[in-house]
């Protein structure tokens, strides 16, 4: 499946991915100014830039083939779409028990405690149906969206 791959060599640590992730999942869909100025309680970013200068990279759900979060979820809210491979959390049913956080080997699931507590995670912008917002707005191609990591594919 297509995934987002981070290339730390080229991550400039600007966090535009986080900013655009927030906007992409806010009620003001991709409108940065409204998201940050009008939404008093904007969503948490589902992508996380990890930084220890000079190294940085963005990390989000890897949509594991054998996703442990889907198996550990106590309510069956976390599911992997058999067609697309995308792991999504059905937030209606999520009770915020954080078992997914316990098992996610990437630490890619965030606690979103704005309303009723839910686990928030990357959905590959599946509702937009195109390139995830983080990849689209990465200024330095440090995020690649593809079947496999760019440089592995290139090495073939």
């Amino acid at each position, binding site marked *: 499946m297509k995934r987002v791959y981070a290339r730390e060599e080229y991550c400039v640590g600007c966090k535009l991915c986080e900013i655009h992730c927030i906007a992409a999942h806010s009620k003001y869909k991709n409108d940065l100014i409204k998201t940050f100025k009008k939404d008093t309680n904007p969503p948490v970013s589902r992508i996380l830039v990890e930084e220890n200068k000079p190294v940085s990279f963005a990390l989000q759900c890897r949509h594991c083939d054998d996703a442990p979060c889907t*198996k*550990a979820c106590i309510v069956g809210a976390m599911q992997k779409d058999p067609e697309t491979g995308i792991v999504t959390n059905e937030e*209606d049913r999520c009770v915020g028990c954080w078992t997914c956080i316990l098992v*996610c080997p990437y*630490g890619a699931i965030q606690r979103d405690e704005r309303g009723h507590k839910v686990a928030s995670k990357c959905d590959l912008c599946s509702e937009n149906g195109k390139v995830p917002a983080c990849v689209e707005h990465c200024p330095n191609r440090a995020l690649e969206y593809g079947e496999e990591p760019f440089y592995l594919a290139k090495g073939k």
Partner: protein
Amino acid sequence: MNYVIIGNSAAAIGAVEGIRQVDKTNPIVLISDEPYHTYSRPLISYYLAGKVAEDKMLYRKHDFYEKNKVTTMLGTKVVAVDTGNKEVVLENDEKVPYDKLLIATGSVPFIPPMAGLDKNNVFTFIKMDDIKAIKEVVMVGNKAVIIGAGLIGLKAAEGLTNLGVDVTVVELANRVLPAILDEDAAGIVQAHLEKQGIKFELNTSVEAITGSEKVEGVSLKNGKSYAADIVVVAVGVRPNTEIVKDSQIAVSRGIVINDYCQTSIDDVYAAGDVTEGYDIVYAQQRVLPILPNAYNQGETAGLNMAGKISIFNGGFAMNSIGFFGLPMITAGIIKSEDENYEVLVKSVPEQGYYKKIILKDNVVVGYIYLNKVDRAGIVTSLIKDKINVADFKEVLLKDGFGYIDLPQELRKSRLLRGGIA
């Protein structure tokens, strides 16, 4: 091919999904003594507190059985397994034949002997029906005594407190949550619970439940006694091996299974709380009554039953739980057992913040995260993959410990993998 599954919780559902990954057509019969559509057992305390409505308790959606071509026999109790004739025997003596059988009967409450257990308003706390029974009688202003300060006991205490019940918890151990917390962490949790009005009696146990027909109180071995309208017995659970006790299926503390989740008898598989599987932290067979383990075993069993050879390498204790807004995640060995263990601790009790990591031979074998639980799964994966952390031990406790702190090679090898790390 005819699959029979006894049970209707995580392991049973995992098995259905495992079978259906491989075999889309052959019939699956699912038998459960509970009359309900599969529901999430851990949610019962939420249900009690009214945080989750009954229809949101479902572990899988309403159309789950239909979609997966599962014939259900809900509210039907299995009494025995006849491995010779390859059939299960029902309470009404009917027999259901199987080609492949999964036993996923879960656990039953462990109820220590004590006087007065037969009185009304003495409850256990693991099934929907337990909650429904409590809901029938509970009233604001009631007093409740909960026997056991484990996960179930404290969940019951939280649920009842939320209903306006005055709760006292009695625990034989010296601390709350003795199975998943050390003394320091338990102290923080206890203090937090006490702020919510819950009282604790530690290092003691109940001598007798008092009252006439109905519970009126409990007397403790330490001489104290408490008035009570409700008593919840939550000392622990044990594998529900009742139906196999007359069979050839090997049982130790639970049903013994191998990496394929096979029992000692051909074509009979077992998964979940009823089993005794491999604990990779302790490196021995143990009963691990936790949901992720149940699902994984169930799925593995299902895959193998349908002919796709699959291995579950074993699990280990891990829990994510929270009480009154204090989340905690713990896994593996949480207390140093001898001088071979190395313990890393960071604690700010006044903020309810506690982080402890246990290492053995530079491999993480357990941890406790209190309050700041974010990204705990990274540490869980270090346990699971037995990563040597010698090179980055000092950053394990760091706030926001993450992939950036892993050596570049390890980090890249994990991040570049699409699948599970």
